């Protein structure tokens, strides 16, 4: 059990880092429709990040706003799950990451939308709707790629294999009294959703093996440092400047 501040950081950092990765597709997507759709997803994620981090900063009461939290923390102070740090890889890897994350977020946000903590509930309720769209989008593409050509089948299968070890961390014990929710209780439903999509996509559900862990406690992958270096570079080059 952690405090609400840390919990909000975790929710916000998941969304922020996911937005950072999703927006890397800009001007590189497979077709224009995907440019628009991926930018939509990134904008939703960024909006969620801003809401959670702003709330976290106000709760902390130390004068840190969303930008101070996004741009002036070092890697070990970020509380996101490692899943969102994974490089985009090919489009299939991004689809797999988006599916697994959004299905988790949708379940989590739906539950948090009913907590007694009104501000958390408000942000979560909006985010739940958004993540539901992300699940649909990623599901459609998982099926198209899984059941598309032999090449796309292989790539989608490899992508699911590659991302799978990073899904376990999402369901590790991590909560706040105001959230009143053990993520482990979401895993059954998450598996149902994901397995149904994989089934439709003619893809096997990967074996459970090594499982990523530690992101909620500030342990991150080797890919995270470079991501932050890019994200924070302009802000840090102009200390104290306003934009």
């Amino acid at each position: 059990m952690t405090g609400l501040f840390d919990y909000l950081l975790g929710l916000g950092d998941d969304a922020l880092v996911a937005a950072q990765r999703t927006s890397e597709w800009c001007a590189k997507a497979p077709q224009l429709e995907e440019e628009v759709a991926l930018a939509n997803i990134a904008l939703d994620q960024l909006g969620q990040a801003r809401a959670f981090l702003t709330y976290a900063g106000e709760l902390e009461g130390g004068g840190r706003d969303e930008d101070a939290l996004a741009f002036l923390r070092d890697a070990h102070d970020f509380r996101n799950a490692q899943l969102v740090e994974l490089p985009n890889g090919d489009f299939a890897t991004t689809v797999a990451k988006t599916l697994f994350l959004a299905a988790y977020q949708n379940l989590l946000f739906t539950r948090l939308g009913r907590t007694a903590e009104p501000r958390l509930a408000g942000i979560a309720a909006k985010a739940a709707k958004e993540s539901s769209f992300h699940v649909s989008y990623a599901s459609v593409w998982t099926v198209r790629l899984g059941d598309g050509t032999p090449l796309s089948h292989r790539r989608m299968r490899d992508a699911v294999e590659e991302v799978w070890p990073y899904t376990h961390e999402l369901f590790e014990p991590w909560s706040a009294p105001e959230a009143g929710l053990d993520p482990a209780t979401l895993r059954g439903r998450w598996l149902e959703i994901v397995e149904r999509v994989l089934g439709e996509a003619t893809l096997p559900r990967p074996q459970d093996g090594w499982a990523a862990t530690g992101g909620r406690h500030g342990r991150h992958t080797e890919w995270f440092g470079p991501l932050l270096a890019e994200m924070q570079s302009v802000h840090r080059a102009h200390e104290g400047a306003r934009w």
Partner: protein
Amino acid sequence: MTTSEDPEPQAAFDATIARRDRIEPRDWMPDAYRKTLVRQIAQHAHSEIIGMQPEGAWIGSAPSLRRKAILLAKVQDEAGHGLYLYAACETLGVSRAELTDLLLAGRQKYSSIFNYPTPSYADVGTIGWLVDGAAICNQVPLCRTSYGPYGRAMIRICKEESFHQRQGYELLMTMMRGTEAQRAMVQESVNRFWWPVLMMFGPPDVQSPNSARSMAWGIKRNSNDELRQKFVDMTVPQADALGVTLPDPDLRWNEERGQHDFGEPDWEEFAAVVRGDGPCNAQRLRHRQAAHDDGAWVREAATAFAARAGAR
């Protein structure tokens, strides 16, 4: 698609143009009109898509989350504009895939402004203020262009562009009110972009071979020089309000004309950039080509899946 020599459809076409009404996809139209439109709309569509690159590269390091969201939404709008415009082109019988191939083969152009680099975050603001500002000057008259789908696309696009223009200006204003380093960034960016922006209106009227016919057909509503003048007159007071200097020693108010006098852009540079010999031409096309190639397997998968789903 009729190419009839029958005088009747030509008369109907001429009458529509004369009363400043819209030509619609199913109407008869002269081949040259169609070709001119395809060339112009495609160039415009390609510009939106290529234009995503220089700004899109700053999304990852935008210095505040608000600016990141604004920039992401803007670049998304550009993708959307590309979509409408390719769709408008498709009403003239040319597919998006064909147009993309023509772009990648260097056989269709995009706005030369995107062949200039954006090495500074201030360029995001300058592109909004000056590049989108110039685009609006060019595009507002196109809302009344004679071809229906194009005109309607432009109405939607212009609305969004003017929003982008205000956001760009607001970013520059914030930076000009900020630190010394921020102000220097803005001035440096404006210095680089000013002349290329003036070139966005095309060569001087005396050297613009297609303009007259396009104006007769109602595709174009104003001459290059008219629009350039309008843009300069509109921009000078904005530059004053910002506190930046436009890098043209000949720029001054001409009381007699009631307009600004200004210097001549380097038309040789313009010609070089248009023929592919600008700072970023190769880079932009290589980037587009790589994205297109990398996405091929995805598009193929979608097609195969759709075909199979249709057959079921």
